[in-house]
């Protein structure tokens, strides 16, 4: 099954709704707690990145027999140096976002850590595409 969520840039009222929606679907299907926890962390972090840094974007959940896939796209400012952005502690969050508890420089590292496959492509000025895969039985068969 697939389910797509629209994400609006700077819409902190709806922020988190996509991640909560993803979690509810995975719970209703009956996945194990650990994989739900990992997908939820990644869905939340990626959704918040679009809200904070992106122009509008989308989060697509794909559920198959052996894997859960999250694809997140936005048409925002893009990432100039992906390697640097993946370093824990590096952040380009604004002062306003830091005041709200974002900008720890943990977003992308959290996603990388909690997914089994983590792919990112981005160009400055051309948006960002993220694809994360979670193996349902802990290993790929």
């Amino acid at each position, binding site marked *: 099954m697939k389910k797509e969520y629209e994400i609006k840039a700077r819409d902190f009222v709806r922020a988190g709704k996509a991640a909560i929606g993803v979690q509810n679907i995975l719970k209703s299907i009956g996945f194990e707690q650990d994989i739900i926890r990992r997908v939820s962390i990644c869905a939340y972090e990626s959704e*918040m990145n679009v809200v904070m840094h992106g122009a509008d974007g989308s989060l697509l959940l794909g559920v198959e027999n052996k894997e859960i896939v999250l694809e997140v796209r936005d048409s925002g400012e893009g990432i100039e140096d992906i390697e640097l952005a993946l370093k824990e502690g590096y952040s380009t969050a604004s002062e306003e976002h830091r005041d709200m*508890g974002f900008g*720890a420089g943990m977003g992308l590292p959290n996603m990388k850590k909690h997914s089994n496959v983590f792919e990112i492509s981005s160009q400055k000025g051309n948006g960002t595409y993220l694809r994360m895969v979670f193996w349902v039985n802990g290993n790929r068969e």
Partner: protein
Amino acid sequence: MILRVREICDLFNLDVVSGKSNLDREVTGGYCGDLLSDVIANSSAGNVWLTIQGHQNIVAVAALKQISAIIIVNGRSADAETVAKAEEEGISILLSSKSAFEMTCLLGQAGLGK
């Protein structure tokens, strides 16, 4: 020791600003943090979450992590949008004039996490 949210409110005289119908939730431990990425990665279901953050983004984090209740410490308050969103998600938000450290010590003395 497991406490219920209601017992924590009564023991420490905390103001409940949202989620009054969910005070029977069990609290199995706690987590302190003001960085949302830290809390989303490291808190556990059933935790009470102590933070100085009162803006609406705390609600989605608490909902996603099945946090039993949020305690906003240091005499800070929750924004009106936060309360409205917390009501919608069924998240209890409690207010304390104490610091996160003081509140954590008190919860420990009450037996939480032991």
